[in-house]
C-alpha cells in the first residue's frame, strides 16, 4: 500500500504502549494484505481516493490552536485534541465518565481496553479500520460506569492544524456504556484554514444491557482536510443508541456507520445530514446488522448537494434469519440545488427473517416549486425563499436533536452553508 502512511505506522509502532503492540502488528498485517480500493471495489464504487496525497507524515506533537481561533463549547465538559494530541490547556472535564488515554492506562485499564477494543469492528471488511489499528499509537477510552446517569454531555474536539507538509491523524475512541447507564457524547472534527490533514477516525460504541447513549458526530473539516473513518456500535439487550451525524464537505469524506444488535429489545435512532458544495465529496455508508430478534431501527439521512459536489449514501439493512419481530425503517432524501450536483443513493435491504416490518425510501428532488411560490406570495424574495426551503429540509432533522446547545450551534452554521449573504439567512438563526 505504498508510502501512504508508512512514516506514521513506523512511528506508531515505536511509540505505542507495549500492551497494544499485537493490535498494531495485526492491523498492519491486514492493511498490507488489502488491495487499495478503486472504482471496481464494490464498497468504493462512487468514491475515489484521488484526493488523498501520496504520502502523509506523522503529526507534529507541538502544534497549537491558532491565536485567532476559538473552538465551540457545546458542553460543560470538553476535551480538545490538536492534531491528535491531548491539549490540557484547552480541555476541562469533571465528568463521572472515566476518561483514560491509552498511553496513560494502568494495567487494569489496559486489560479493560484490550477486552473490548476492536470487538465492534470487522477489520477485514473495513480496511481503514485495520489501518487505524496499525497506527494506534494512542487512543481514548470513555468508560461510563454502570447504573450512572450523566446529565452533562461530554464533548471531544478533534482539531487539525495548518502545516506545510501533509500529515495524518489517527483518532480512536472506545466508549463503554455500562449497564443501565445514560450519557451523551459529542465528537466534533474541525480543521484550520489550509489544513491538509488526513484523519482516519474510528469510534467504537459498546452499549451494555439497558444502556442509553446519545452520540453526535459533527464533521466540519473543510477544503483539503480529508477524513475516512467510521463509527461501529454494538448494542446489547434493551440498550438504546441515539445517533446524529453531520458532515460539511471537503475534498473527501467517507464514513462507515455500523450498528450491530447483539441482544434483543435494543433500539437505534440513526439520523444524519450531509451538505457538500463546490467540488466536495461526502460518502456515508451505513450498515445495520439485525442479528437478533425484537430490535428496531429508525434511520433517516438527508443531503443537500450543491454546485458540482457529489454525495453517496448507501444504507444497508441486514435482517438475519433469527431476527424475528425486527422493525427497521430507512429514509434517505436528497435535494440537488444545481444541475451538476450528483448523488448516488442506494438502500440495500437483505431480509432473511419472515416476521419483520421493514420500510425504506430514497428520493432525489429539487426545491418544491409550490412551497417556493407560497413564500413568494408573502413577499419573501426568491433567493431568500430558496435559502429558507433548503434550510427547512435539513432543519427537520436538526429539530429532532435533543441537545438544545447543539441545535443552536448548528442552525447558523447550516444557514451559512446556503448563503454567505446574511440578508438571506437572517430569518433562520
Amino acid at each position: 500500500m505504498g508510502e501512504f502512511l508508512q512514516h506514521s505506522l513506523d512511528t506508531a509502532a515505536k511509540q505505542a504502549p507495549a500492551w497494544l503492540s499485537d493490535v498494531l502488528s495485526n492491523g498492519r498485517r491486514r492493511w498490507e494484505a488489502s488491495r487499495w480500493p478503486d472504482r471496481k471495489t464494490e464498497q468504493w464504487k462512487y468514491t475515489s481516493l484521488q484526493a488523498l496525497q501520496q504520502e502523509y507524515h506523522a503529526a507534529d506533537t507541538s502544534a497549537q490552536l491558532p491565536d485567532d481561533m476559538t473552538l465551540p463549547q457545546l458542553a460543560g465538559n470538553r476535551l480538545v485534541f490538536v492534531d491528535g494530541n491531548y491539549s490540557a490547556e484547552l480541555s476541562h472535564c469533571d465528568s463521572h465518565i472515566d476518561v483514560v488515554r491509552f498511553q496513560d492506562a494502568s494495567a487494569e485499564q489496559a486489560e479493560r481496553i484490550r477486552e473490548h477494543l476492536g470487538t465492534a469492528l470487522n477489520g477485514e471488511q473495513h480496511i481503514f479500520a485495520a489501518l487505524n489499528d496499525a497506527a494506534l499509537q494512542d487512543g481514548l477510552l470513555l468508560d461510563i460506569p454502570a447504573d450512572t446517569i450523566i446529565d452533562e454531555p461530554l464533548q471531544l474536539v478533534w482539531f487539525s492544524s495548518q502545516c506545510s507538509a501533509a500529515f495524518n491523524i489517527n483518532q480512536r475512541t472506545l466508549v463503554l456504556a455500562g449497564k443501565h447507564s445514560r450519557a451523551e457524547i459529542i465528537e466534533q472534527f474541525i480543521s484550520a484554514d489550509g489544513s491538509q490533514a488526513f484523519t482516519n477516525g474510528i469510534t467504537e460504541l459498546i452499549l451494555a444491557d439497558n444502556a442509553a447513549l446519545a452520540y453526535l458526530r459533527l464533521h466540519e473539516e473543510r477544503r483539503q482536510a480529508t477524513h475516512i473513518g467510521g463509527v461501529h456500535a454494538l448494542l446489547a439487550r434493551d440498550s438504546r443508541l441515539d445517533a446524529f451525524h453531520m458532515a460539511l464537505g471537503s475534498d473527501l469524506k467517507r464514513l462507515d456507520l455500523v450498528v450491530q444488535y447483539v441482544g434483543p429489545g435494543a433500539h437505534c435512532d440513526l439520523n444524519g445530514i450531509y451538505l457538500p458544495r463546490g467540488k466536495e465529496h461526502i460518502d456515508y455508508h451505513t450498515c445495520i446488522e439485525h442479528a437478533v430478534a425484537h430490535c428496531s431501527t429508525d434511520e433517516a439521512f438527508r443531503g443537500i448537494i450543491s454546485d458540482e459536489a457529489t454525495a453517496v449514501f448507501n444504507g444497508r439493512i441486514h435482517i438475519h434469519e433469527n431476527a424475528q419481530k425486527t422493525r427497521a425503517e430507512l429514509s434517505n432524501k436528497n435535494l440537488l440545488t444545481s444541475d451538476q450536483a450528483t448523488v448516488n443513493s442506494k438502500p440495500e435491504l437483505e431480509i432473511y427473517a419472515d416476521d419483520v416490518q421493514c420500510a425504506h425510501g430514497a428520493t432525489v428532488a429539487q426545491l418544491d416549486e409550490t412551497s417556493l411560490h407560497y413564500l413568494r406570495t408573502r413577499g419573501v424574495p426568491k433567493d431568500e425563499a430558496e435559502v429558507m426551503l433548503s434550510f427547512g429540509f435539513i432543519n427537520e432533522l436538526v429539530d429532532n436533536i435533543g441537545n438544545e446547545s447543539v441545535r443552536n450551534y448548528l442552525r447558523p452554521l447550516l444557514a451559512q452553508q446556503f448563503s454567505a449573504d446574511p440578508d438571506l439567512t437572517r430569518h433562520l438563526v
Partner: protein
Amino acid sequence: MLSIKDLHASVDGKTILNGLSLTVNPGEVHAIMGPNGSGKSTLGHVLAGRPGYEAISGSVEFLGQNLLELETEERAHLGLFLAFQYPVEIPGVSNMEFLKASVDAARKERGEPALDAVTFMKMAREASKIVDLDPAFLKRGVNEGFSGGEKKRNELMQMMLLEPKLAIMDETDSGLDIDALQVVANGVNSMRNKDRSFILVTHYQRLLNFIEPDFVHVLSGGKIVRSGDKSLALELEERGYAWVADEVA
C-alpha cells in the same frame, strides 16, 4: 385599484379563464361565487403569478401597474395578498420565521427597518389571539400538521400581519364551524377600511351574513356571468347556479 379586462388564462396549457372582466375600487368588498371548477381559484393564482398559470390575452392593472409583468413577490410588495384555498405545508421552516420574513420583506419595500425579534413576537402573539390560534403554532413548521381550520386561520393571520391593499380570500370560510367562521369574519371586518379591498371567494352565503359585500359575482365557465348586490347571494343559495348558467346560455 384592480382592473381586469377580458382576461383569458390557461393552466398547464388548458384554457380556464375565458374573457373575465372585473373592476375593484378602493374599500370595496366583492364576493365571487360559482360552481366547482369554474375558475375561481385559477383567477387568484393568475393574479398571484403562480407558475403554470398563464395569461393568454387581456389585461390586469393593479394600482396603476401592469400586474402580469411583475414577479410574484413584487405583487405582494405592491399590496396584493392571496389566502390559499389549500395552504401549503412547509416542514422545517417555522411559522414564526416565515411570518417574520414576510413582514420584514414588506417593511423593506416601504423603506422601514426589519422588526426586532421581541417586537415581532408580540405582534404575532396578538395576531394569533385574534384569529384564535394557539401561539404554540407559531413554533411549528408552516402549516405542518395543521387541521383544515387551523390552516385557514393561519392564512387570515398572515393577511392581518401583512396589511395588504387587496386581499383575495379563496374559500377561507370552507370547512369552518360557525364559531371559526365568526373569527374569520371578525378578522376581515376589522381590516376593512376605505382604502383596503377584498375579493371573497366562497360557496356559502352564510359568510356574507357576517361580511357584507358591496358586490356579488357569479363565475361560471371561466368568466363572470352575472353581478349584483348581496341579494344575488341569497338568490343563489335558494336556486343554485344552474339558472344563471341557463340564462346565459
